[in-house]
């Protein structure tokens, strides 16, 4: 995504044509305006609407919407909202925990896959499958797998003498379980990107390292990892963004519970809007989340510009 911008930005301007005629100008607008219209109508407008609503209270009287101006009340309330705090901290723990696990496991599997010749396509096909399955189905699969009474996880652990545990029902393990499910869901994505990255590395560097007598570990640390840094950075950013948005699995597996132990920010937002019907307060929360997200992007982009790490 960041790469896409850099690509377009760096594509050289056509030197042969200095000015465009009226026909080209018309087509330039015609080809771009559908996308522009969609983004304006369905992203800019709703966010503007949220911003406006975040200063209001919405009540219903005789089927009519009544909006009253409340100023910054909602934003002030955010600071003392323990659910919002729990949502933010759980989302951070979830995102960094899950993505770290996915990166390490995905890299290891991709590295192993490059060591074999036969069966690479088959393994790749199997590992892609979870990426394509609906998040809600993943939730259903693991709700069954982690069931206290008949789930396969407790059965398997029973074989090695571990007592059955209510993984999703106890506050100590609920978030951990959701993280493990997310690792199961998205490690394949990291695997796929890392495999593509590893396959495109120049082979002569490895031959040179081997000639110099480098062992497998030295080769990994001094050759493979440094060459893979651009792919690693892009994959990390890509996954982190998606992890911040997690909703489906949590909705099905725990619904934020027990207590607030798996309360992630998407779920907090959902409850304010649709369970409690607090549109004004929910909007203030949304605007705050959107602001934090934009801030994150600005920081990431400026860090990228400073280091020039990728592309």
């Amino acid at each position, binding site marked *: 995504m960041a790469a896409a911008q850099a690509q377009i930005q760096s594509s050289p301007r056509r030197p042969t044509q200095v000015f465009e005629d009226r026909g080209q100008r018309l087509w330039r607008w015609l080809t771009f305006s559908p*996308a522009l219209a969609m983004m304006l109508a369905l992203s800019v407008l709703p966010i503007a609407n949220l911003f406006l609503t975040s200063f209001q209270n919405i009540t219903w009287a005789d089927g009519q919407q009544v909006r009253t101006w409340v100023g910054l009340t909602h934003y002030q309330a955010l600071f003392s909202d323990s659910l919002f705090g729990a949502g933010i901290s759980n989302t951070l723990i979830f995102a960094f925990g899950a993505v770290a696990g996915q990166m390490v496991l995905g890299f290891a599997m991709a590295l192993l896959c490059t060591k074999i010749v036969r*069966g690479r396509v088959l393994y790749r096909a199997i590992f892609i499958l979870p990426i394509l399955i609906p998040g809600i189905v993943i939730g*259903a699969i693991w709700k069954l797998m982690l069931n206290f009474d008949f789930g396969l996880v407790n059965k398997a652990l029973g074989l090695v003498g571990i007592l059955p545990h209510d993984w999703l029902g106890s506050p100590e393990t609920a978030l951990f379980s959701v993280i493990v499910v997310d690792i199961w869901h998205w490690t394949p994505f990291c695997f796929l*990107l890392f495999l*593509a990255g590893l396959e495109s590395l120049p082979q002569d560097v490895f031959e040179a390292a081997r000639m110099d007598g480098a062992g497998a570990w030295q080769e990994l640390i001094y050759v493979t990892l440094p060459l893979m840094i651009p792919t690693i950075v892009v994959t990390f950013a890509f996954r982190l963004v998606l992890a911040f948005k997690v909703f489906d699995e949590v909705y099905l597996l725990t619904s934020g519970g027990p207590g607030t132990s798996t309360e992630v920010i998407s779920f907090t937002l959902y409850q304010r809007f649709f369970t409690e019907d607090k549109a004004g307060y929910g909007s203030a*929360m949304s605007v705050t989340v959107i602001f934090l997200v934009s801030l994150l992007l600005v920081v990431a982009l400026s860090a990228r510009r400073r280091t020039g790490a990728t592309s």
Partner: protein
Amino acid sequence: MSRRTHSALPVHITLAIGAALVLVPIIWTVAAGFRTQISLLMGDVLFTPIGSNFAEVLWSKTSDFLLNYRNSIIVGIASTLLCVVVATLAAFSLNRMRWPAWTVHLFLAWTMIFHMIPPVALASAWFTMARAVGLENTFTGLILAHATLNLPMAIWLMAVFVRDVPKELEEAAIMDGADTPHILWHVILPLITPGLAATSILTFIFSWNEFAVALTLTMKQTATVPVAIAKFAQDFEIQYTQMAASAALAMVPAILVLLVAQRYIVKGLTQGAVK
């Protein structure tokens, strides 16, 4: 050479364990769809498969699953068509037309921010807007929402594919007096067809999988498959075997796509991020 054959076995074993960790939960869940509730609770390894869960989910009067399936297909195909056409035009425009740099940067930065926002944050605003123009509980509302949600990814992907078309071909066409629609249709389009296929397949799958927005914008008649499956989990007494059966049915497009078009999926998933 001997070192190579020596170390191959542990590699194969580790990869096989990885593959088993991916496949076992899926197979076990599909198998649970063929069990009776009692067989599932008892956890017998061997069981006589029954079809009644699937029959119940698909044909029972109280189940809307076939309707949900049809809804998901309609929304998936329509939103994919809309999204991919709009994205291809935009990618071409931003890449090959003479837009000022700030327009391109601002637009792409906005698509990035939009892509990072949890859809739940927008769902309520979309719901309000849909109701204001009479599109609540219609396919149109959900189709527009899904097309918009997938638009950033589709634009980035198509931008990569359009960029890979050699500029010389376009310049040669201009020399021959071709205008913009001619270039787009006869020069660019034939060369980006594989990329277009990859983007379309991914967009369809993401629409098929989308839950949060479908949950808020649909009602009984327009509900999609994920919304229907989520309902199972909320029943007071969860029908586990029926939940497993409908989960198995919901995985069919993913498995079909994987069997038929693995090449395109890999292309779509890797090109956008790595390139």
